């Protein structure tokens, strides 16, 4: 379990990591990156599964169901649109051959 001090360190380091990853990104990729990071926080699905998994009352189950529904939407939708966008980024044929050689 991640607690107290360690959590603060993890928050800090994760913050640096996120910042550094983005800091030198070309404008051309801003939208796919927004979409890609949107996908990444789809990990909330995992938490939603736990929330529903530990639900005991019906109220909790309803809210938990809602959480999983939304979380799955975030994860799957985020993946699909990001993948569709990134798939379109291709170098020209010339370049591709050049790189192959």
């Amino acid at each position: 379990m991640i607690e107290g001090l360690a959590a603060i360190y993890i928050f800090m380091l994760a913050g640096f990591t996120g910042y550094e990853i983005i800091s030198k990104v070309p404008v051309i990729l801003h939208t796919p990156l927004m979409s890609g990071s949107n996908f990444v926080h789809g990990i909330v699905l995992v938490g939603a599964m736990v929330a529903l998994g530990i639900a005991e009352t019906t109220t909790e189950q309803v809210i938990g169901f809602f959480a999983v529904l939304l979380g799955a939407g975030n994860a799957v939708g985020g993946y699909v649109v990001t993948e569709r966008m990134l798939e379109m980024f291709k170098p020209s044929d010339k370049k591709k051959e050049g790189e192959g050689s």
Partner: protein
Amino acid sequence: METLIQAAYLIAAALFILGLKQMSSPVTARRGILWAGAGMVLATLVTFMSPQILDSDQVSTNIALIMIAIALGGGYAWYSGKKVAMTDMPQMIAMYNGMGGGAAAAIAAVELIKASNEAAHDVTGNAAVADMLGADVAILGILGAVIGTISFSGSIIAWAKLDGRLNRSRLLPKQHIINALLAIVTLGFAVAIYFTNSIETIIIFYLLALVLGVFITVPVGGADMPVIISLFNALTGLAVGFEGYVLGNAAMIIAGIVVGSAGSLLTQLMAKAMNRSVANVFFAGVGTNVVATSSSGNEGVMKEIQAMDAGILMSFASQVVIIPGYGMAVAQAQHKIWELTQILTEKGVSVKFAIHPVAGRMPGHMNVLLAEAGVPYDMIYDMEDINADFKNTTVALVIGANDVVNPSAKTDSSSPLFGMPILDAIDADNVIVIKRGRGTGFSGVENPLFFADNTKMLFGDGQKAASELIQAVKEL
């Protein structure tokens, strides 16, 4: 089992980071999303085996519910994500992002309700939510709930606005003052949750936060939406990170905070590229943009050109630089433009695309559209890389762009655009501008480029005009 799950989460978190990293270069971007996707699948699968779930009294019901919810939510998202047009991407991202925020808020709700029930039935009879969860968990959990809920309802508004389902920019008079009051009241209820054990407080809190998200987002101008979406994206990340702490789930913490930090930076980069501050986007509302409409005096003559003549000019050019803008997106003209480019290239003309960082209505908008049409990214040049090259350009073809080629950003200090870097299309030997009429751009400012000596206007819808150009060039 616990160790295995934790190891899987660790790998998932690493895959997310490596994936995002690879997404920051066009060459590896595709692989990046695949890696991140693998991380997600891994994390989801192992979660089914988590002891917390398997030890529950209602294990079979709950697991069934989980599967149904995943099938429904995932299925719908898969379908809608596959089907959406490229131009509608921003609102789709807004929606999926809102779902994430909602999920985080719902997780918080489950935890808070649980804690509040426990507190109410505590032996002392007078315990509060904070006593049950501990101060750190309670604070981060509630914070995540506020942020997640605002991101949820705000994103839905953003989606509705971008999808053209909502056009109002004001719900109430003095909206900003009401928003401020509402925010204070919401925070008050958030604090109340911490110190009490009442379910009603929790419910009212969530309702207030939902309304707050709506109220904050409605006044934002449609064109500022990308900044807002990016901000909500970062906020959802934060909320996910905080709820990850509540659940003791490191993958959520790391992925959430990484996105929160990356998203904040991205938001700032976007706002900066539009010459505005993030605060300004929120509080200026849509009203301010209208003020600037008439910096006129500039009512010179626009010289028209016909597609035939424009085609000839371009066919015999040594270099043509195409500058697309928002109008190309509206007209969906990117495919025609790529066709035109190929024909010109065959004729030996060197064709380049010049992209302004904020052309269109979202960052990288033009790049996405051009990529969709099949334009290879090495034909596409950033502003800094191409600006010096306009001097060697025979024809600069402006299609549906306006503000991003407005020279008054450099020359007229009274212009609202003043200070924004622009594409120096005006330096080209000839400028051909495709637009439907005398409409202004996003900023509402007149554009002296259209009246310049070397500029000719090719009036018409972007797609139609491009088709005519193709025709003209082909016939030569």
